[in-house]
């Protein structure tokens, strides 16, 4: 049914994404789909990487680890933006078409009052993406 599942990841908080990563892996195995891990970063040095090239390598390593752990075919798709705090949603929406994904599986926090001011990334992607989006809450 689905051939490419896009799984947005924040490498700095990958430990909090395990549930969503597992769900994406299960679905990928079920349909024999490929998982593309999408990460968004800036060109300025950050906590994870000093250069876009280093970030790409780390995301690829992460994808390889997940492929091994979950037993799925995986790829990495880094997106470099000028202002990742704000550009995250448009960057992810662009990545949906760039990766050719037909399903997005992404983690999102349990909504609180702040979401009324700043909608969650998961909520925004679900509202705007042309493909199916599965928003996974933490357990």
């Amino acid at each position, binding site marked *: 049914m689905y051939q490419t599942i896009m799984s947005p990841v924040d490498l*700095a908080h990958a430990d909090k994404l395990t549930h969503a990563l597992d769900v994406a892996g299960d679905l990928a195995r079920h349909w024999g789909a490929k998982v593309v891990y999408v990460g968004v*970063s*800036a*060109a*300025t*040095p*950050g*906590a994870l990487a*000093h*250069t876009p*090239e*280093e970030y790409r*390598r780390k995301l690829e390593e992460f994808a390889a680890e997940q492929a091994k752990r979950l037993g799925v075919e995986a790829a990495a798709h880094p997106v470099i933006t*000028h*202002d*990742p*705090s*704000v*550009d995250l949603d448009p960057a992810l929406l662009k990545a949906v078409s760039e990766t050719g994904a037909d399903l997005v599986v992404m983690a999102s926090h349990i909504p*609180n*009052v*702040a*979401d009324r001011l*700043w909608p969650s990334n998961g909520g925004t992607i679900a509202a705007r993406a042309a493909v199916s989006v599965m928003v996974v809450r933490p357990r």
Partner: protein
Amino acid sequence: MADENTNQGIPAPEGAADVIDTEYEIGQDNIETQFGPFGLDIHNPVFLISGLSIIAFVFYALALPEQSSALFGWLRPWLTSTFDWFFLGAANIFVLFCLLLIVLPVGKVRLGGADATPDYSYIGWFAMLFAAGMGIGLMFYGVSEPMSHFATSLGGVSVGEDGMRTDWAPLGAAAGDQAASVRLGMAATIFHWGLHPWAIYAIVALALALFSYNKGLPLTIRSAFYPILGERVWGWWGHAIDVLAVFATLFGLATSLGFGATQANAGLNELFGVPVGSTTEVILITAITAVALISVVRGLDGGVKILSEINMGLAFLLLIFVLLVGPTLAILTGFADSLMAYVQYLPALSNPIGREDANFSQGWTAFYWAWWISWSPFVGMFIARVSRGRTVREFIICVLLIPSLVCVLWMSVFGGTAIQQFVQDGVTAVKDAPLELKLFKMLDELPLASITSFIGIILVVVFFVTSSDSGSLVIDTITAGGKVDAPVPQRVFWCIFEGAVAIVLLIGGGLASLQAMVISTGLPFTIVLLLMCWAIWKGLASERRA
């Protein structure tokens, strides 16, 4: 680290000094927490110390207004009159250093690595650096400063009983000689808005861009000190540098916002009869902050860049309008004349020692240099943020030479028109008007005054917005330990905080004294900038040339 960066143009280290290999991880001192429903990612000491010390100084200015006014009111003129030679000498070094970087082979080094491509087009890049750097100043001083130097030059030299000069004319003045006064007045104005201020910004911006994009250090002021302080830069030395930068930026912006609101209010009163008073000024600050808030929430590309481009477009239209309907021929010949006068008087105007025009060299030049330098952490860091992918040569040409030329053009058109109105037509309206109204009085003498004046007001307000939003982004990045992906509510906090400080100081008093304090930070930052020149040189020497 060296190996990892090979593709980014940094060569494999040859010896110990090449690539910065630090154990420090960006964000390692940060606290990630929740404040109510909002997520925070803040640098542990820098965020708190900056915020609390800013609040403490606001309280000091409010609780002891006379004492703070006396202290800072004395401190600022004392610094610029005692250390004028130091400010003038240092600024000359910055200009010469920048010019050297253009012609030397290190100019080929590319910021971001040999294979990096520019993040922004020339127009977007230039609009942003210009709007953050001095857009608002050009609106207020574009007419008034050429007029002022022209008038004092024409008035000639006057000497007091103590044998000291009491006039404010540059150099030896040009008593009674109108043509010479115009040339000297324009040269002095361009001197304050041309190569020197932009060299100051270029030094800070280049240091930050180099140590961040090419050396992998966080995008924060302390990173430029790594060659000097080594690993200590991540400790209290670095905290102090970053706190000082936040402090100068926030107070610089807040006090300018406060004064700007007063001036915009005067303009609105002149044009539309809007009442002058605290209520209007508070509404203006709130409106400017609200637009800046939308801009920072929309981000660098969706907010700051778009506003900067709109503003540059409007400013360009106004410039073309004044050029075409004003004394076009006189302005164009004046442009060439002013440029030549600038070159002719530059050695004398920039001479740091043995000056006879103390009022001018200390009260104008040294004051301006301290002012530009106190703004340099903010403007420099913002320029660095948007300059990845440019070569050093391209960077210096675009940050130093082109803005200087634009300033010459702007001053020639606006100041030149006002001077022509006085010299040719005997119109004294501009000469007699207070500072905040000079631009509008000049426009009054031209056709379609109500439209152009309205555009003028819009430009003033939007230039404040573009300073406020870029300043909030800079403060947010510094207080997040150099992280540019900190949660959005943090930048919202700084933007609102800046507006709130401006309102409190406007109502309670203390704008002048705290602005004097900010300018006083120019002295320590001058030493900082001199050290940065050395750090840039050391950093560039080990880079591969594109």
